[in-house]
């Protein structure tokens, strides 16, 4: 039995399903741009102040948009019962979960990162600042999606799960937010961003190793 065949089939199915939900991806991007723009507008044209809040504002906007996208992760499979078939596949469930989380990141967080340079220009950021902001988002947003997957798995099948996810994962998002925005801020104020980026990478590695396994266990419990 070759688990790669199974993993590949799941990856392709997830991509296909995401393409069927293109409107959701666009909504998310619009939401991200809208929050970031509202930050910019509310600074009343103070260019200096605007530039100094830019990394934090963009990080918070991205965090909200990612949180908003989590509801779909397992509930669709739960409603149409295909999740039972995932649980019964002759492959490690944590690997299947990892694939689902990766495609979730690719179709929710990654488009936001692509839109970020344009928002950075709107905030009056320079090339170096935008660069370190992008690096911090690339290292930090996968952690946000991973943590969100725990929330989505633990609240699966409960009523009002979207607000429950938010309550559950909100405190867990804070470390990533702190290191993420401080990496981008460091460049803005002329310090080295390296330390914060290393911390982000460390969080991500710990997340990749532990979270798919934890999510797999909580899915088995939720489906029992």
């Amino acid at each position, binding site marked *: *039995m*070759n*688990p790669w*065949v*199974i993993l*590949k*089939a*799941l990856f392709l*199915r997830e991509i*296909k*399903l995401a393409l*069927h939900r293109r409107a959701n991806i666009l909504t998310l991007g619009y939401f991200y741009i809208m929050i970031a723009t509202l930050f910019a507008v509310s600074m009343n044209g103070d260019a200096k102040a605007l530039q100094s809040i830019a990394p934090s504002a963009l990080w918070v906007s991205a965090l909200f948009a990612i949180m908003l996208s989590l509801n779909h992760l397992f509930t669709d499979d739960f409603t*149409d*019962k*295909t999740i*039972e*078939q*995932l*649980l*019964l*596949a*002759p*492959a*490690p469930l944590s690997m299947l979960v990892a694939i689902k989380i990766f495609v979730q990141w690719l179709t929710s967080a990654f488009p936001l990162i692509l839109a970020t340079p344009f928002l950075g220009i709107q905030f009056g950021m320079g090339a170096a600042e935008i660069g370190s902001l992008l690096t911090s988002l690339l290292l930090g947003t996968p952690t946000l999606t991973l943590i969100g997957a725990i929330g989505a798995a633990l609240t699966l099948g409960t009523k009002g799960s979207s607000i429950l996810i938010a309550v559950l994962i909100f405190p867990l998002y804070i470390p990533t937010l702190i290191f993420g925005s401080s990496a981008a801020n460091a460049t803005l104020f002329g310090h080295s961003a390296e330390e914060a980026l290393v911390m982000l990478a460390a969080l991500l590695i710990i997340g990749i190793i532990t979270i798919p396994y934890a999510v797999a266990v909580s899915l088995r419990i939720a*489906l*029992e």
Partner: protein
Amino acid sequence: MLELRKITCQKNEIPIFEGINVKLSAGECLHIKGGNGSGKTSLLRIIAGLSDPEDGTILWTGENIKHDRETYHANMLYLGHQPPIKENLTVLENLSFMLALAGINADYEQKNRALKKIGLSDKISIPAHMLSAGQKTRLALSRLPSDNRKLWLLDEPFNSLDSVAISCLETLISDHLTNNGIVVITTHQPLKIDPGKLKVLELSV
């Protein structure tokens, strides 16, 4: 091959069934009967390994299924009473994914034959949400001809099927038993299967 030892199930502290012992060898079919709420689906989910029994063990080729989950699941097919289908994907995409997820390699010809057998060959590139309830059940069952796994667990597979599809499914089950497969099935309707191969388990409410 498949053995249930003293399987006991509780829900919210209320016992559903107790001490079920069944032994099935290759080529045998177990028909689980019982009224609504007697625990047919619960028993089937326990056999599938989706939920844990309160007490007792399930053995597959003499091995507790909890010890080597992946080997057991590579030999087992479970179909719940709601067909596991992605509404946005086409009939063919659904079938391909179901087979791939089971680790079964089937080419286009084989899938086409299976869909023809079950009466869906003209719906091959239609999104599944345009199918009727009976057609969705047919789509879920269309994997059976290509599914060479030993053990089939079927929960109310005859639901919302018409008489043509019912006899088609009966043939599939008989063929599987002839090929030394094992079938565990819950249904309210009488099974047209060689009585020598059939075991019946009656659950009481």
